[in-house]
Structure formats: structure tokens, C-alpha cells
């Protein structure tokens, strides 16, 4: 960890490695679960330009951009 890292907001004091490793493990397990069919199908439709589903909760807010 360098001063430059600190200046950029990089992590300075790491978590306890045991906590961090468990966090990562849990996160990776969730990320690694098989994608449900509806999500896979949605992504396929979007990439092919065939999806006209509207999001339920409105447009992306200004702070999202």
C-alpha cells in the first residue's frame, strides 16, 4: 500500500484476513451460482435487440450515471 494508493482512496488498513477471506468466499459462491434461465434469456433478448421489456422502477436516476 502506497501513499499514492491512499491518496486515491485505496484501501489502507486491510480487514482481518480471516474475515476478508470468508467474505470473498461467500461472495464468490453467490456469484458462481448457475444463472437462472430467465436472466439468461433476458440477456439474450437484450443483446439481440429483441427485448421491449420496460423496467418497473423507472429510468436511471441522475446519480446512477
Amino acid at each position, binding site marked *: 500500500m502506497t501513499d499514492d494508493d491512499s491518496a486515491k482512496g485505496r484501501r489502507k488498513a486491510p480487514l482481518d484476513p*480471516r474475515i476478508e477471506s*470468508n467474505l470473498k468466499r461467500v461472495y464468490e459462491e453467490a456469484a458462481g451460482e448457475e444463472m437462472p434461465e430467465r436472466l439468461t434469456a433476458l440477456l439474450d433478448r437484450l443483446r439481440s435487440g429483441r427485448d421491449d421489456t420496460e423496467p418497473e422502477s423507472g429510468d436511471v436516476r441522475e446519480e*446512477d450515471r
Partner: protein
Amino acid sequence: MTEREQLEADFVGEVPALRAFARFLTRDAAQADDLVQETVLKAWVALDRFEPGSNLRAWLFTIQRNTFYSLIRKRKWEVEDKDGEHAARLSQKPEQDGAMDMMDFLAAFETLPEEQREALILVGAAGFSHEEASKICGCAVGTVKSRLNRARTRLTELLDLGPEDEVAGDAAMSALAASQPLSAD
């Protein structure tokens, strides 16, 4: 491959990370996928407004987080892990190395306030910097650091961790985590 096609491919590649973050936000598998679906739809519509060269994952996480709290307000989603189902689902693999018991860890993690859990996931698991996490959460960098510090202190107390508790299994766990770094890039 065009620039747009590359961006779309990168977008799709971030969906597993969105699912992991959604799981921690909603603490429910079905709601998590509802949230990811909603996030994907919103973000795809807004994809032309994504600034090339900026952090796509951070952009998507920000949209997902805002979508989550928007849905919470509209639908009054319940996010309590009433039966411990979330904790049980997240890690069903038994510990074999004597390291920190995962169920104990998850039980302790669940007791943390929402904003502390969020900070831990963003920085400790998803690999975002403090600055990136602060932008995602819409708060100051110092606030993220403070939340992390309080979360770390609380977990250390709950799990009764100390230097003397260092066990051989930690090295293996750390190596496992380091072997699959989760970059925010």
C-alpha cells in the same frame, strides 16, 4: 467486435457480480434475481450514457443499489433473514481446515447494520476501493472507512478473533481468496 458489442459483452460479464451483490442486499435468492433483472433492464436502457473508460462494475452496482432502495420504498420488500435461510444457502460447504467456522462468520455478519454489511461487501469482497464504494453508496469516503472499521471491530469481537487465534487454515483460505481476485475494473 464493435465498441458497443464489447461494452455489451462486458456488461453481461458483470451479471454474476451483480447477483452476488443482490444476494447480500435482498438476503433472498428469488428477490435477488428480481433485483438483478430490474437492474439489467434499467442499465441496458441507459448503456449509451455509460462513460467509456470508467468503471462499469461500479456503475452497475450503483444502479442496482439505487434500484434496490427504490423497490424497497415501493414494494416494502422484506429483507430480514427470518429463518437463517440466507446464511445457510450462502455457504453449505463444511470447514475442513479448522479456520473460522463459516456459519459462525455468517451469523456474526448478519448482526451488523445494513450499511456496515454493504461496506464490507463492496470493499472486502467485491474489491472496490474506499473511493469507489463511497460513490456507489453516495456517501463520503470517510463514512465508508468508518463503517468498515466499526464492522471489522464488531466482527472481531463477535468472533473472538485475536492474533493468538491465528490458525494454519488461514493461509489456505487467504491463498484461495487471492487466487481468484475480484477486480472492480
